[in-house]
């Protein structure tokens, strides 16, 4: 069973859900490809408020979220090659990800260029 509430939210909205919230129970991890992680700065501290974007294999923009105060971000993608890129007032950073079905966890470091 999926949760009607979570479905309604997804259908009605294009805005980013709370990034630090636990995965909704409606998310089926045998089907969904979740790319999640934490944005950190050079000192290893979490960076909240960073703009984290998901780029597809051709470098095309696919989605963007704002990291939570704990630096957490999350995407619902599909299996394949992706790039996760973060922009913040503390600097930028990016990482290539080969994602598979289930939860794919990464750590993304940002530094002043």
């Amino acid at each position, binding site marked *: 069973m999926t949760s009607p509430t979570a479905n309604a939210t*997804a259908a009605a909205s294009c805005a980013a859900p709370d990034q630090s919230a636990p995965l909704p129970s409606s998310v089926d991890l045998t089907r969904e490809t979740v790319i999640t992680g934490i944005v950190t700065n050079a000192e290893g501290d979490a960076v909240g408020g960073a703009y984290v*974007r998901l780029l597809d294999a051709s470098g095309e923009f696919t*989605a963007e979220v704002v990291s939570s105060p704990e630096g957490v971000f999350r995407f*619902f993608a599909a299996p394949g090659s992706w790039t996760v890129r973060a*922009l913040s007032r503390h600097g930028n950073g990016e990482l290539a990800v080969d994602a598979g079905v289930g939860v794919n966890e990464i750590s993304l470091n940002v530094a002043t260029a």
Partner: protein
Amino acid sequence: MSRDTALVSADWAEKNLETPGIVFVEVDEDTTAYDGGHIPGAIKIDWKKDLQDPIRRDFVNQEQFAALLSERGISNDDTVILYGGNNNWFAAYAYWYFKLYGHGDVKLIDGGRKKWELDARVYSKDVPVREKTTYVAQAPDLSIRAFRDEVVEAIGVKNLIDVRSPDEFAGRLLAPAHLPQEQSQRAGHIPTALSVPWSKAANEDGTFKSDEELAKIYGEAGLDGSKDTIAYCRIGERSSHSWFVLKELLGHENVKNYDGSWTEYGSLIGVPIALGDEPGKA
């Protein structure tokens, strides 16, 4: 319309925070961003609570829009400066409403909340109190709003621009990749629609690309300047962003936003749908 009349820079905004007759409005789907800090003096509009009808599947009507603006203290002769998160998607959507209901002077902050944040400009948590007004909304200008029957008739006739991501266009995803994918409607796109993701029009910091770059993007995608254009996405807010580019920045004449977009079209019985990366045939 042009860039000079429809857009202001973050610098301009910061210099005009105290200017009388200018109202800054943050528009978001999730207003916790506003509550945690906003451009000093800005009021908020909640895309869902304030701009959607609570019962019918539609947005606020003329009377509801007038009541909202009156309650928020916006006058007909105020200059309204909109900005928001999600690369100004919801601010562009609200801009489209202001135009639809005939507001005189409304502009977007180029780059919205993201540019403000990346520039490390100041936020305030103070919520301004504005005196109520008696706002008068005009009858909706339907020359900028497309409905479903018109969209079906436009297949192979007008420019249809699908501004969702390439994977949503092709039918590989049903929603943007920051949302869970479970949904019931069909995937794909309206046959003959050109795929021009909204993001092509924006720089990484959320600002709009130059007019020359924008004209090149739509030209290379195959947009026929002699035809009318209808833009759509999933729920009509990303297509407001592209509508803004085509109508307000590039000055194309007959451009409509189909706010029913894919959540409506992809649930209709019997309409044609194309799958894959190509526009498909009428």
